[in-house]
């Protein structure tokens, strides 16, 4: 019972609001004028007209209330969104009344307490039926997009008032940072830096390192059958050691308020780099501020890294002499692989940079200023 108490309270004090439409304003002005005329003259036929207009106002309220009652909404959202990328969301509206239809329903998404008009309108919802409406959802900020519920409004029956009510359907969606194609120069820089660091050698992995003749003791599962068939000699496939394709991407989160936009840019660049490297098969680790992911590979790992980037927040430096945070270089060296850092703020001397700084293994990448 106690668990039901809050919902009972919500139901009792469910938000209602009424706004007068432009036609309604004119109607009310006419009503006022007729009321004044009726009082002034004492003419009962004026009172009759006044009563008609007042009853139209009352009927508006009653019918609109019934139109908005006993509706049910279900929202279907994708698991994640990307900043500025339109996504289709669907909404199922159901009229749970047994007799009365609902008319002229206008639906508003309520997000962070604000009503967002997405142009959703259901002209008629018969009793016991449901209707599916879809709309384009565009998130403009990364992070958690909180959708509080649906605000339903109707001007039915006479268009004099817009009566609204709120139906709570809480949904939370993670909004990834914007991912843009990586600029060619940055790409070259990343590849060059990576190749300087890495020494190709045999080992366990997926990428092809070499083809050689079969020797006794070789694992028969490594036989490369197409080449064997073509050369009529048993040939085995050697793979490149995987640790040579490791990368750690570091995004410092310390930046002053003035660098907020730059920080968002840095997050977007980091996300773009991560996705690019993930698609190239890199084993990736992401360090965002003080939080760090494990090394990993594959789509699930990529989703996890993007989620970290989606929810990360900028922290203001504590003092004037503050630096962007500890470089976790030692750890990287121990674990090997390339270290890529994307910095939005390099220290108090970094006055007004235009772009985040990208460093690969400590060296600033040329052309990184307009990387993405």
């Amino acid at each position, binding site marked *: 019972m106690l668990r039901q108490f809050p919902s009972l309270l919500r139901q009792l004090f469910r938000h209602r609001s009424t706004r007068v439409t432009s036609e309604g304003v004119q109607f009310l002005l*006419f009503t006022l004028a007729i009321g004044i005329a009726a009082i002034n003259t004492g*003419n009962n036929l004026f009172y009759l007209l006044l009563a*008609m207009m*007042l009853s*139209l106002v009352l009927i508006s309220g009653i019918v609109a209330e019934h139109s908005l009652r006993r509706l049910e909404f279900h929202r279907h959202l994708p698991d994640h969104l990307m900043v500025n990328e339109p996504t289709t969301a669907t909404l*199922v509206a159901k009229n*749970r009344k047994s007799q009365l239809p609902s008319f002229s329903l206008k639906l508003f998404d309520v997000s962070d307490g604000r009503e967002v008009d997405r142009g959703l309108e259901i002209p008629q919802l018969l009793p016991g039926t*449901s209707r*599916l409406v879809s709309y384009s959802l565009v998130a403009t900020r990364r992070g958690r997009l909180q959708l509080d519920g649906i605000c339903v409004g109707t001007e039915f029956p006479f268009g004099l008032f817009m009566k609204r009510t709120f139906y709570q359907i809480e949904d939370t969606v993670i909004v990834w940072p914007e991912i843009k194609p990586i600029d060619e120069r940055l790409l070259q820089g990343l590849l060059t830096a990576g190749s300087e660091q890495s020494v190709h050698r045999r080992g366990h992995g997926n990428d092809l390192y070499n083809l050689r003749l079969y020797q006794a003791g070789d694992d028969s599962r490594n036989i490369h059958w197409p080449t064997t068939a073509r050369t009529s000699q048993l040939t085995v496939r050697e793979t490149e050691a995987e640790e040579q394709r490791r990368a750690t991407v570091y995004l410092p989160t310390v930046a002053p308020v003035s660098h907020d936009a730059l920080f968002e840019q840095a997050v977007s660049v980091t996300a773009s780099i991560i996705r690019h490297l993930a698609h190239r098969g890199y084993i990736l680790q992401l360090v965002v501020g003080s939080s760090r992911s494990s090394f990993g590979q594959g789509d699930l790992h990529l989703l996890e890294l993007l989620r970290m980037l989606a929810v990360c927040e900028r922290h203001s430096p504590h003092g004037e002499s503050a630096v962007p945070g500890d470089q976790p270089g030692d750890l990287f060296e121990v674990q090997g692989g390339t270290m890529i850092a994307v910095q939005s703020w390099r220290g108090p001397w970094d006055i007004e940079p235009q772009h985040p700084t990208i460093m690969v293994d400590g060296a600033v990448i040329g052309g990184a200023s307009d990387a993405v």
Partner: protein
Amino acid sequence: MPFDQALRFASIWLASTSFIGLALGAGLPEWLAALTGAALIVAFLRNRGHKSVERLARFSPISPAGWNLLVIVGFLGFWVDMLWVSGELLPAGIHFLMILMIIKLFNLKLRRDYLHLYAISLVAILASGSLTTDLWYLPIFLLYLLAGVWTLLLFQLTKHPEETQVLTMSGTVRSQASASVHLVTPQFFWLANGLAFATFGLTLAIFFTVPRVSAGFYQKGVGENMRTSGFSETVNLGEIGPIKRDPSVVMRVELADGSPNKADGLYLRGVAFDQYDGKAWTNRLGYRRSVNEDGTGAFVLLGNRSAAPARLGETIRQNILLEPLDTPVLFAAPFIERVSGKFPSVQSDLTGSAYLPFPSSSRIEYSVLSRSNPVLPADLSSEPSLYPESFTRHFLQIPVQSERIAILAKEVTHTQRATFDKVHAIQSFLAHNFHYSLDAPLAELNHPLEEFLFSRKTGYCEHYATAMVMMLRTVGIPARLVTGFLATEWNEYGNYYLVRQQDAHAWVEVYLPHSGWITMDPTPPSLESVGSNSPAWHALGRMMDTVRLQWSRFFVQYSAADQLAVVRELKAGGTSARNKALDSMGTLFNPFMAMVGGIKEYVFNGTISSLAEVLGLALIGLAFFLWLGIKRPWAKAMAGKKTTRDQQPIVQLYGRMIGHLARKGISKPASSPPLEFVRLTQERWRDAGSAVGSITELYCRARFGQISPTRAELSLAEGHLRYLMALHKP
């Protein structure tokens, strides 16, 4: 019919209703009425898609700027009309309103134009209400209300049809659905009419409850007062004749006793006259003085206390609804003792007539207590007595040329000795020897009374009454002529006398020394009648008049005093109803209360264990009610019922599938959820797996996800079931 077209029709209907109301109430000039009517017909035909009218409208030589120019010209015309033609604001404003309506009817393009038309219609119906109080306003108002509801409803529903984004699975379904949404279906028809009905009900409730702040005596008059004659200070003989052909209703008289107790009608006294100059009657005692109010707000006319003991007189209580007349006289049965009504003051003259300070310009309602004077036995045998000079100067006055009349009177009465017998003899003589006819042009003659008595012997009430007064006076009996109405038309539907202009009447009041003034009427009953003789038609007329009276009572005349009366009635009724309800409740709950009392006694007299028993039972009962309140099993049952309408097809389909599978040897265990059963089926009958999976998915979506399948999905599922039934199980 599509909403757009219906909206156009409803708008024209709204405008037509207000136009008819205005035309009936204001008496529009013929040319303007014809022009507005033509504009409405053209608008109607255009909306019906009449090709020739449409073509004509398309090649209209007037551009939008031209229409605007016409509005300006119309406005200038309004000033000209107000200053020089009509000379008043209201008629000129109404004419301008009609011009605006015509212009707007030819320009109904944008939604804004429709709003303008609605505003014009509203002002028109308002103007109509200010110009009439007649019953025809009621049907016009009802039509306007109905049209208004339809118009507003359709105007709202056609607001944003292009912005609608309703997505359904199949294109066909989508087009059908959206088309049906914007069509006037039978359901929509009943919805609109139901809303109109509800609005009307609420209108009545608000109308009767909204406080009447302005509760003045005289409402603003509507049009001219009804012209009548015979009630001024001087009345020419024969003046009443012309109005005796007028069937207009003058007043309605309700009797407190409920029904008339006299077959010969009810005399409603107006004015009495004392002086006759041979051609005209004059009231020389017409000096009016204000009448004092008593503690109850009634005006008491002391001068009408008769010489006879009051207890002998017959009292008549009347409630009179008087139409606006051009006379301030308050009519009532003779003789008025008390008058009460919403009057600032009441005046009376020395003949006992009652007056308002000035003629009322609206219908008024008042109550009167009258008391007639019976003829006392003392007067049945007494001879004419001597009267003071002041009395004889007024009521024994005879014009100089009355010798022949005096001789006739003596001839008629020479055998009678008692005063009353003489009076009766003269009355009888006139009633039996003269012919009643309204076609008696005696007024133009020099000696109309002599002409009536000795030559033509044909006349109507005035002639009879004048002749009797003159004859009585010549034999020394004081008498006076009285004009008023003789109410004979009893309305059995409304229980009141309906008094028309044609009921105007003149009769005689004779003064008897002991009894006072008594009413005598020498006029024989008229055989002439005005209007149709059909009883059915008369009955219908009376029925309509009852409706008209109720309209007037409850709508036109409804006032703050009526509201107070209703509140008092409700209060009194409420108290009595509450008492009755309490009595009934007491009777109903007496056994229960006795049982509770018994338990209480048992507890107080019993041991701890008995107390625990009672408390335990009470707690169990409380818990049961709490459980009911929280779980609300009825709500679940209702919810289950409600979900079936939309989900019924797929639920039935799923049931048929389960039944078919059971017949094939794959029964669904009760413990197995639907998806689990799909897996089970796939294991045991691989070919059926996909069909069963599809149907189950739709079923689960509808049943647990509250997403109803579309028509396309349903037809697909039916296809799957057909496939399943055709499939051979190995």
